């Protein structure tokens, strides 16, 4: 059996829930990329997390289920090794994985000009899922200094806590997801074709 034969054996429908061997090995790699990219961004003191880069790539390569599982496992493993409170955002990561795959299927990651609206939509999905979690668990805060400064200034002006929390999360997500979306777009373009075909389960 060569890699091409195995790849075509792995071909599954876009929304298939059955994990093929290529998705099974892609997911841990994607989680590892999330983890390392996040640590790398922290090391460089960047104002972004980059912790969803692997989820973006998994969704673009193997579809929504692989992307969503990558995101979910990433938060669970991060929670069980470094920061238990980040486990609650596993739901947000699932949303990001599904949104990226949906937008990728509609061609948003084919040209640089369409990556920006995709990033805005993904940031919106992320903020919409994270806001109730922020309000329920941390009274609306995110724990990121300049996002929380915006939250504090809005709450001080008697803006509704849900709106203040949403804006706090959205401004952080907008910058992060834009950088991650362009990084994922550039990396995807540079990936060897045999890797892309293998994980997509398509013929060359």
């Amino acid at each position, binding site marked *: 059996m060569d890699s091409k034969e195995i790849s075509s054996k792995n071909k599954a429908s876009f929304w298939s829930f059955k994990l093929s061997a290529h998705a099974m*090995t892609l997911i841990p790699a994607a989680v*590892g990329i999330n983890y390392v990219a996040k640590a790398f961004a922290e090391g*460089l*003191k960047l104002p972004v997390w980059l912790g969803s880069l692997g989820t973006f790539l998994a969704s673009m390569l193997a579809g929504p289920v692989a992307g969503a599982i990558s995101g979910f496992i990433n938060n669970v*493993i991060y929670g069980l090794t470094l920061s*238990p409170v980040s486990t609650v955002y596993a739901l947000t990561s699932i949303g990001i994985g599904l949104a990226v795959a949906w937008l990728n299927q509609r061609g948003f990651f084919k040209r640089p000009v369409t990556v920006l609206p995709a990033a805005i939509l993904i940031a919106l999905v992320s903020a919409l899922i994270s806001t109730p979690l922020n309000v329920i668990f941390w*009274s609306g*805060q995110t724990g990121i200094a300049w996002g929380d400064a915006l939250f504090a200034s809005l*709450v001080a002006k008697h803006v509704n806590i849900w709106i203040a929390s949403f804006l706090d999360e959205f401004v952080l997500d907008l910058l992060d997801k834009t950088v991650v979306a362009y990084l994922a777009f550039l990396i995807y373009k540079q990936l060897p074709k045999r890797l892309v075909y293998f*994980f997509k389960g398509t013929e060359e």
Partner: protein
Amino acid sequence: MRNNAEDLALPAWQAAIDPISKLLLILLFTLAAFTAGNLPSAIIVLAASFILALLTKNLHALWGMCAFSLFLILTMLLIQGLFWPGNHTAAFSVASLTFCQEGLDHAALLACRILTIIFSSSFFIQTTTISENARYLENSGLSYQQVYVLMSVCYILPQMQENLRKIQLAQKARGIAPAKSLLSRIKNLFPVLLPLIVKSFQQAMNRSIALQLRGYANPKRRAASLKQEYWKDKFCHRLLIANCLVLLGVKACLIIFN
């Protein structure tokens, strides 16, 4: 979770608790912390979880996990103390800023919840190994594929961190100095991340081929046997789930009748 069992010399009672019970214990403590509607009861739950965490005798790791959430707790005290909508009783003033008692109490309640999650999670993290978890989950009925996806991450991460270190050293040797401006730092991401990602995907492709050649999906595959006996594991699961359901019921009643 620890990588190897060798560096994990646990007291007999800690080793006798199965991994799923430890996970359910995290859920139980978390639910208890969120059901506690006032500061005194939240402190009682926090104290119980702290005792559980202390039993692992690894204060260094415990402090490491707390430090991760310390900034969130500090900003909570600041923001809730100053701007919480329910604020009306002044507690103290710093310069022109007046902190209110209600906001500080609310922030302390939230901090108790965060610390309870951390302390109860640390018990699981410090007393469980990856291989023990994998064996137990497979023996509990989870498919080999699901267990593989969950557990292989823990083995791949150190490998990727080593790859990242090697790439960074190679880039330094080529004369790529750490940039000072933000834009240059973002630009420098690409030459490090691209080789790391390509290498990770190539290794994933090789693993996928190896898994298929070894017949990973064979329905006759036998789960690896458990290395140790657990104390009444099924009973513990039922007991903990029942307690979680009771706490959920109490929380629902509190929401409905308040």
